[in-house]
């Protein structure tokens, strides 16, 4: 008998007052009892509309069916058949616009908590140590993957499952890409990312760190070395700035730098770890996306008063509702319809304030979002010591520069069709390097499709 509750079981969370002072995970996860109760809300629809909302086609009703009897390991196996990184997806996928947006239960009430159940299954199975994947039969085929973020890991996992020998080349000293340098510990514990990556290693995937594509080697050299296919999942690149005065002052970070210092280099433990971070007592974060929320919540945990400054209204913010909600709960101030016009420094070149102007929404732009227009005479000064710019990235130039016959878009992204095939033979690409900044799961979907294309093209 289905559980006909109109709402999903709330996620147990650390108290906002407590968590805004630590970097431990905010969401604590369902217990077995809660998971079984929530699983019972699933109607197991024959046509499974939820699956059509999943970029990697997880058989959602089937894994939830296993959870109805509390069988996390069976559920995990079902998810793993389609998704290489379940514990990560259960945490950072925007389920509300994907699987859960298609859930029949969502028509009259809240959809089934698919993401939370996925997380429960993965965490439980991985904790019991049964998450290991048998090493598939070796076919002797070789592929190289550039970048060990979500796109690269997924592509590597799919190819390894098919018995290919896969080598991942990672530029940083730790594998995981944005999962380790970008997404904070309190949203995605790094130990968990390591475990997911260890699972891939156990399947035979080799990861070479400190290897920068376009510098230490080129795509053509990989092909010449005998890799039958090369997948490029090099992610997003150089941070964008607003081009307002004062962006070079001490105390202005790109979100990439701020988050990398904290997440990859563990600057929040300074001086235990050697990488420093400087934050001051008041911080402004410019932008309205998930990265802006992550940066703001990190700054809060370092003890600062934090304002998010966004030029449109909350309705236009691209961040997930859940992230906005969490940020607000933690005491982050939202200054909507506000645009920075200049960052002002003291006599030593450190930030002392940011000039802002209020905006109002005018006519819709070409993408249908109402364009913000400055309100004359509404300028004011916001006293801050740190400004974090979280307004997106431009593609990394290194691979483009050294692979002249790889077609790229005018804005610098790599051209690839919906299956990840680029204009260069045996070269595939996916994730932010192709689409510009997007989500973990879209990158995973792209990695998965590219792996399928590689297998189809190399029978």
């Amino acid at each position, binding site marked *: 008998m289905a559980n006909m509750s109109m709402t999903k079981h709330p996620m147990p969370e650390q108290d906002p007052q407590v968590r805004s002072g630590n970097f431990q995970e905010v969401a604590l996860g369902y217990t077995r009892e809660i998971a079984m109760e929530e699983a019972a809300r699933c109607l197991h629809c024959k046509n499974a509309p939820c699956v059509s909302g999943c970029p990697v086609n997880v058989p959602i009703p089937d894994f939830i069916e296993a959870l109805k009897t509390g069988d996390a390991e069976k559920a995990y196996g079902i998810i793993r058949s389609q998704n290489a990184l379940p514990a990560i997806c259960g945490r950072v996928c925007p389920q509300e616009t994907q699987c859960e947006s298609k859930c029949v239960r969502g028509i009259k009430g809240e959809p089934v908590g698919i993401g939370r159940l996925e997380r429960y299954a993965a965490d439980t199975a991985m904790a019991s140590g049964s998450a290991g994947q048998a090493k598939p039969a070796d076919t002797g085929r070789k592929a190289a993957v550039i970048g060990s973020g979500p796109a690269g890991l997924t592509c590597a996992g799919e190819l390894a499952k098919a018995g290919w020998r896969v080598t991942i080349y990672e*530029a*940083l*000293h730790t594998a995981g890409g944005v999962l380790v*340098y970008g997404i904070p510990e309190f949203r995605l514990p790094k130990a968990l990312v390591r475990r997911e990556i260890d699972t891939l290693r156990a399947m035979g995937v080799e990861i070479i*760190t*400190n*290897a*920068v594509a376009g*510098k*230490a*080697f080129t795509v053509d050299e990989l092909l010449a070395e005998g890799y039958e296919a090369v997948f490029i999942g090099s*992610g*997003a*690149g*150089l*941070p964008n*700035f607003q*081009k307002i005065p004062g*962006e*070079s*002052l*001490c*105390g202005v*970070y*790109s979100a*990439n*730098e701020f988050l*990398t*210092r904290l997440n*990859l*280099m*563990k600057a929040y433990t*300074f*001086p*235990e*770890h*050697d*990488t*420093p*971070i*400087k934050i001051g007592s008041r911080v402004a974060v410019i932008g309205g996306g998930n990265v802006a929320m992550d940066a703001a919540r990190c700054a809060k945990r370092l003890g600062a008063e934090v304002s998010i400054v966004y030029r449109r209204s909350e309705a236009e913010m691209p961040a997930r509702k859940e992230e906005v909600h969490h940020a607000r709960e933690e005491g982050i101030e939202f200054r909507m319809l506000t645009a920075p016009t200049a960052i002002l420094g003291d006599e*030593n*070149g450190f930030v002392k304030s940011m000039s802002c102007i209020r905006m109002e929404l005018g006519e819709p732009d070409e993408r249908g979002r109402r364009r913000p227009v400055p309100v004359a005479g509404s300028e004011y000064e916001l006293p801050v010591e740190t400004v974090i710019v979280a307004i997106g990235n431009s593609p*990394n*130039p*290194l691979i483009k520069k050294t692979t002249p016959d790889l077609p790229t878009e005018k804005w610098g992204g790599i051209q690839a069709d919906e299956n990840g095939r680029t204009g260069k033979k045996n070269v595939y690409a996916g994730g932010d390097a192709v689409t510009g900044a997007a989500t973990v799961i879209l990158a995973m979907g792209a990695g998965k499709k590219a792996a399928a294309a590689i297998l189809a093209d190399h029978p």
Partner: protein
Amino acid sequence: MYPIIQKRVLNETVTLMKISAPMVARKAKPGQFIIFRIDEEGERVPLTIAGTDPEEGSVTIIFQKVGYTTEKLDTLEEGDALLDFVGPLGEPSHTEGIRRAAVIGGGLGVAIAYPQAKALHDAGAEVDLIVGFRNEHLIILEEELRAACTNLIIMTDDGSNGHKGFVTQALQAQIEAGREYDAVIAIGPLPMMKAVSEMTRPLGIKTIVSMNPIMIDGTGMCGGCRLTVGGETKFACVDGPDFDGHLVDFDEAMARGRMFRPEEAEARKKHLCRLTGEAR
């Protein structure tokens, strides 16, 4: 891991190390840099490459003990290893077509000026190599320097080697004596590179400087190494580290370099006891 295969103390604060890093050695060219990390808690520190031996698979770095990480690096010996060593990063120096050059090195910058001078000299260019140190005890690599140029001028701030003055004064003297240069290449502390650029600007001599700002990944991701060059934002890691000295906003670069001074001092103080085993 990246083993240290040779260590040579050049003076009381400057040390040379040859690191086994075949992937870097295979591709590195003058002007490029590496990033190293000593251990799991370590920070990522960029250093310009001072030399490579592709056959041996080694990369030479020369560093000055200026902060916690370089102090710690200096405690490592031959046979020890670095946890991470990535490169080559940045664009190689573009020195094609330069027939007559003044290569200027200040302090630790001498270590980087050396391979530049050598590459130019090996390519048949006439090279005046002008290097500066605080005093004669700090002079490094004299033999190597002499072999890498047409004309070596060593200046000391205190005149203890008999040539008192700054590298800019020596360059000025050379130019006044009638030397003509296709390019001046200046590598060293920001105030030195700024002074050289200011000197050559009115003379219209092309001047190349090598920037070494704060950076983390070094691959075009963090944006920490941004500089203003000719009014545009440039990233030292992917657009540089070499730039036209007449276009670089040195004052801004100097201010940005001060960002983490207090934290660096804190780290150094906190860790000194760990390094030396003494209470301070």
